[in-house]
């Protein structure tokens, strides 16, 4: 499981005089879903376009399946499947002809593989219809079929759930998990939707203003920042007691939030009870990435 399929080292891009990407490094391992998270304008799309060879990096290196994409473009791209932004296929061709078109650009990919991927994404019934008659969800699936044609080791999906309805998003999520777990692909997913990444990814890189702020597993990132939410009566007295023990944060709905610590939390509860404050509610809360993100980036959005 530890095989590295894609590695990015100190990647930079300068456009004009402005440094858009300021040295990004990360690695993808086999069978994992890697999230690429950042606000709009943070440099996600530019980075992804460099990974797939659409934009030439100013400096730094990208290796896919061990091949440098600048020096060995063809070999590197053989291991890569991607959708950059929307899957913009040819609307005037049928789904099948679109797949045929892209299969012809790969060595040794024939009709059998086309029907395999068609089956995989569940488009069998509509594959001979023109793409312009497809719904967005179907186009998205055809896009994935196209990306899987060459049996890639790395799949790069830029905002894969953009524009899909809730059922479509769920379906897409399950499909991506399936690809990583069953087929052993490395999947890089970019998104500005934090909830999405949280549900989908094993590891995540948080990017802001062209640099990676942190890279870690989703679990690790979240567990350090668990909180306890309290509700008690009378409020003022409770605040006084708890406030003397630790830092407290009051919410408008009348709840108090403190940090979480297995031993200390029990201790505080005891103190509150002893001071005749009745604790009516007390629960552990996993932070959502949203809070985490704001905390890490200091709340800034776009440069």
């Amino acid at each position, binding site marked *: 499981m530890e095989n590295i399929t894609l590695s990015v080292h100190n990647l930079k891009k300068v456009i004009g005089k402005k440094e858009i990407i300021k040295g990004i490094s990360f690695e993808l391992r086999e069978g994992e879903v890697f999230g690429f998270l950042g606000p709009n304008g943070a440099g996600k799309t530019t980075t992804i*376009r460099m990974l*797939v*060879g*659409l*934009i*030439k990096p100013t400096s730094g290196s990208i290796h896919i399946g061990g091949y440098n994409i600048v020096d060995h*473009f*063809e*070999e*590197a*791209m*053989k291991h*890569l499947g*991607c959708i*950059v*932004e*929307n*899957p*913009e*296929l*040819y*609307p*005037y*061709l049928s789904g099948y*002809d679109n797949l*045929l*078109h*892209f299969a*012809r*650009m*790969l*060595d040794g990919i024939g009709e059998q593989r086309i029907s395999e991927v068609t089956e995989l994404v569940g488009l069998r019934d509509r594959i001979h219809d023109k793409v312009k008659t497809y719904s967005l969800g179907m186009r998205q699936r055809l896009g994935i079929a*196209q990306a899987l044609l*060459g049996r890639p080791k790395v799949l790069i999906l830029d905002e894969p759930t953009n524009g899909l309805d809730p059922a479509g998003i769920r379906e897409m999520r399950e499909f991506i998990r399936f690809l990583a777990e069953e087929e052993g692909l490395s999947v890089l997913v970019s998104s500005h939707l934090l909830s999405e990444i949280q549900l989908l990814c094993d590891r995540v890189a948080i990017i802001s203003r062209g640099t990676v702020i942190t890279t870690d597993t989703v679990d690790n990132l979240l567990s350090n920042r668990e909180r306890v939410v309290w509700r008690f009566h009378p409020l003022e007295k409770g605040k006084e007691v708890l406030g003397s023990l630790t830092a407290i944060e009051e919410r408008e709905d009348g709840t108090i939030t403190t940090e979480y610590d297995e031993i200390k939390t029990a201790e505080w509860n005891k103190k509150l009870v002893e001071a005749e404050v009745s604790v009516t509610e007390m629960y552990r809360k996993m932070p959502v990435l949203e809070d985490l993100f704001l905390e890490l980036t200091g709340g800034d959005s776009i440069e």
Partner: protein
Amino acid sequence: MNKLIQNEMMKLIAKKRLVVIAIIIGILVALFTYAQFKENERQREKLGTDDWRTIIQQTIIDQQNRISSPRISDEWKQQLQIALQQNQYYLDHDINPSEPGAPTFMRIFLENSIELFIPLMVMVIASDIVSSEHSQGSIKLLLTRPVKRWKVLLSKYITLILAISLIVAIAGLLSYSISGLVFGYKGWGAPVLTGFSVTDAGLNTASVKLIDQWQFLLMDFGLVWLVAIVVGTLSFMLSVLIRSTAAGMGVMLAALIAGAILSNMVSSWESAKYFFMVNLKLTNYMNGNPPPIEGMTLSFSMMVLLIWWAAGLFVSFYVFTKKDVY
């Protein structure tokens, strides 16, 4: 590479551009055939004869009258003089310059469409072959395959050349088969004079040769094809440089129309002869029509076109392989 060309052909056919072009050519040919038919009829009524000698004689008299008119400019007078001398030559050697029949119609049609009509049709395909990938966004899928960029572009260029050849062939085929319905299909062996050259002293007939019409047509086709390739390559370049198909088409259209206007205006602006668009009427050299600017010859024009072609091709490949795609 074959597979890539197959891809491009598949897209071209699915877009039905070639069908539209064939329909346009068909309609125009039908119109011209009718116009030519009417013209013949009118002349027959006016002169009361079918004999081409009488018609040419009449034309010569007409031209003489115009030359002796004092209101006419010197330049125009010179052109008329050349045309007159040519007609006289035809008459003296007993050769009908407009031998009736589909091959003659085809020749006249080609000669008149080389400057604007065929380039326009070529432009419809060439200016969209790269830029449509940009505007649809499919360029992102096309360039992320394990295929080098220059190969992708080369496959598009080869497809374009095939399409251009097809357009020229369609133009020939349609003009022959449609006009033949009215004028008959004979006339391949009709004699045609070529090799007129225009010098300061007027028309020089020293090197005039008599060849069969089919030979002449073959040369015409070659020239039309050459012009179409050059215009196609330049449109192709614009298609690489400009993402919007409409903008690319607009630029090319402006250039072509400017060429047509300039040819009639710039005889005193000599350096205008290095523009590709005033060099498009290659067939005129074969007929001995005076060039738009003094000193232009067939080999000069072909050289100019060749240089524009090479530059266009170089820019296309250089930009396409280097540029970042957003």
